[in-house]
C-alpha cells in the first residue's frame, strides 16, 4: 500500500505519504489564504522526498473537514481528480478525527474534545472517548455555548487555543497534520473499517446572498 493523504480543512496545507506501516514523507505549511497555491507543490515535494511518482499511489485519503469551505474544497477536488486519473479509491476522513489521533500520538488519552477555528467567532468541534473514538457528530457552535458541556475536558486544536475563556485546558496540536490523517486512514483500512465518502462536511448552509457587483471584471 502507498497512501497519499492531504488535508486543507484548517489553516495547514498538509500532505503525507504512508506505506501501510509508517509515514515516509510529510509536509505541512500554515497559511490560511494560500491553500490553492501551496498544495500541489507540497504533493510534488513529498513524492520527491520519498522517491516515488504519483502513479505509484494505491490509495488517497482526504480530510473532509469540517473546515472553512474555500480552503477545504482545494484538498477535496485535488484528491478527487487524482482518484479519477489514477483509478484508485479516495477515502474521506473527518479532519477532527485526525487531530484527535495526533493528540493521542502526543500522549493524550481521553476523554477530550477537539475544536478548530470555524471563523465568525465559532468553532468546529467534537468529543472523543479516546484518540480513535469520536462520540457524536461534529458540530459548529459558539465557544461560550459549549464551554459548560466541555468543562473539565482538555480541548485540542486552534479552536481551543483561540478561546481560552471557554476552553481553559487547551492543548496542541493546533492544526491537522496529514501524517496523522494518513496513519489513521491506514489503520482503519487495515481493520476493514468504513471510510467516509470524499465529500465536504460544511455544517452550515451557504450564505444565500447575492453580492453587489458579484463579478467585477472591468479592465482598468
Amino acid at each position, binding site marked *: 500500500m502507498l497512501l497519499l493523504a492531504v488535508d486543507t480543512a484548517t489553516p495547514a496545507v498538509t500532505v503525507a505519504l504512508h506505506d501501510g506501516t509508517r509515514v515516509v514523507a510529510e509536509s505541512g505549511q500554515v497559511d490560511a489564504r494560500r491553500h490553492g497555491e501551496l498544495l*500541489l507543490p507540497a504533493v510534488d515535494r513529498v513524492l520527491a522526498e520519498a522517491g516515488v511518482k504519483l502513479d505509484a499511489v494505491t490509495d488517497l485519503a482526504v480530510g473532509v473537514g469540517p473546515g472553512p469551505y474555500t480552503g477545504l474544497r482545494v484538498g477535496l477536488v485535488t484528491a478527487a481528480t487524482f482518484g479519477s486519473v489514477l483509478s484508485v479509491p479516495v477515502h474521506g476522513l473527518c479532519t477532527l478525527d485526525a487531530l484527535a489521533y495526533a493528540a493521542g500520538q502526543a500522549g493524550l488519552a481521553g476523554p477530550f474534545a477537539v475544536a478548530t477555528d470555524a471563523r465568525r467567532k465559532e468553532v468546529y468541534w467534537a468529543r472523543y472517548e479516546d484518540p480513535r473514538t469520536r462520540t457524536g457528530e461534529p458540530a459548529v457552535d459558539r465557544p461560550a455555548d459549549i464551554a459548560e458541556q466541555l468543562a473539565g475536558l482538555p480541548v485540542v486544536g486552534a479552536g481551543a487555543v483561540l478561546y481560552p475563556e471557554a476552553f481553559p485546558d487547551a492543548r496542541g496540536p493546533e492544526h491537522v497534520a496529514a501524517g496523522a490523517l494518513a496513519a489513521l486512514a491506514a489503520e482503519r483500512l487495515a481493520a476493514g473499517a468504513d471510510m467516509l465518502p470524499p465529500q465536504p462536511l460544511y455544517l452550515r448552509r451557504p450564505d444565500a446572498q447575492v453580492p453587489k457587483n458579484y463579478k467585477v471584471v472591468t479592465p482598468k
Partner: protein
Amino acid sequence: MADEPLVLGIETSCDETGVGIVRGTTLLADAVASSVDTHARFGGVVPEIASRAHLEAMVPTIERALKEAGVTGRDLDGISVTAGPGLAGALLVGVSAAKAYAYALNKPLYGVNHLASHICVDQLEHGPLPEPTMALLVSGGHSSLLLAPDITNDVRPLGATIDDAAGEAFDKIARVLHLGFPGGPVIDRLAKEGDPKAIAFPRGLSGSRDPAYDFSFSGLKTSVARWIEAKRAAGEEVPVRDVAASFQEAVVDVLTRKAVRACKDEGVDHLMIGGGVAANSRLRALAQERCERAGIRLRVPRPGLCTDNGAMVAALGAEMVARNRPASDLELSADSSLPVTEPHVPGAHGHPHTHDHVHEISKDNLYS
C-alpha cells in the same frame, strides 16, 4: 489535423462547471453542468452555492467531456483553466482540479483569462481569429470592448462599463417586471412581440463629450424602473412587451454603435461579439445590420458557445500550445480580478522569481 494540439479546458468562474476539449480550432466536446436553477430564487449568482456545485460537478464533468470527445487524458497536449477573472471561490475549484489533472498526467498547465477565452472561442466556429480582432464582450459579469492583436499575449481594453454589466441590467429589469432570473432570455422573447420605439429610454454615455467606448447601464436601469413604477402608481397596466423591447433596444443600440465605431476608428474590418448577452437575438440582428452597412464582417459564435463554457478555455489553451507560450506553474493562483491585459498566467520559469516562497519542484515530476 491530427498534429494540432489536443487540449482540455476547465471553466468555473461563475455558475457553470464547463469542461471542453478541442483539437486546434475543432470542437470535440463541450460538457457543462450548471447551477443556475439553484440561484434563480435569489435573483443572482450566490458565490458559495456556485462553489459547492463546482466541487460536486468537477470530476464527473471532466470524465463526461473525455468520453464525449472519445479521447483519454493521456492523449492530451495540455490542460487549460480559467485563472480569472471571476468569483474567487468558484475559480479556485477549477484551478485546483486543473493543477491536479495536469500534474497527474504530466501535462503542461495553462492558466488563462476568462475574457480572452470568450473571444478565442470563435475560432471553433469561424476559424482562426483575424489579427487584430475587435471584440465586444457582453454578459452578466462583463461589458467590454477589446482590441486583440494577438489573443495569446496582446489584448487591449478600449472601453468597459462604468457601472452595471449589460447582462446585469437585463436581470434587474426582469426583476422589476417580475419575470424571474436570469432576465436575458425572457426579455428577448417578450421584446419580439413589443415595439422597440414605444418608449424612448436613455442611451447611456452617448453624448459627444462622453468616453467613446465606455458603457453605462445604471441610468437606463433606473429610468426603466421609474417608468414602470409610475405606470403602476397611476393604476395603469404595464405594457411589458413594449417595455422589454424598448429597454432592450436602448442596450443593444449603444453596444453596437460603440462597437462599430471602434472598428472604424481602429481600422478593423471584423467584429467579434461574445458573452452570454451575445445570445440576444436583437443584438445579433442589429449588429449584423450595422456591420453590413459599415463593411465590417461580424463573427458571433452560436449561443451555446457565447455563454460560459469549457470549450472557450480549451480553445485559448490550444492557441497557447500552438504558439509555444510558456506554461503556468503548479503555484498558479485563482485571481478574481485578473486583468484582461493578461491573456494567460505564465509560470515563473525564465522570469525573475519575485515570490518569497521558492519551492524546489522535483525534476522527475516536472513537465517538459
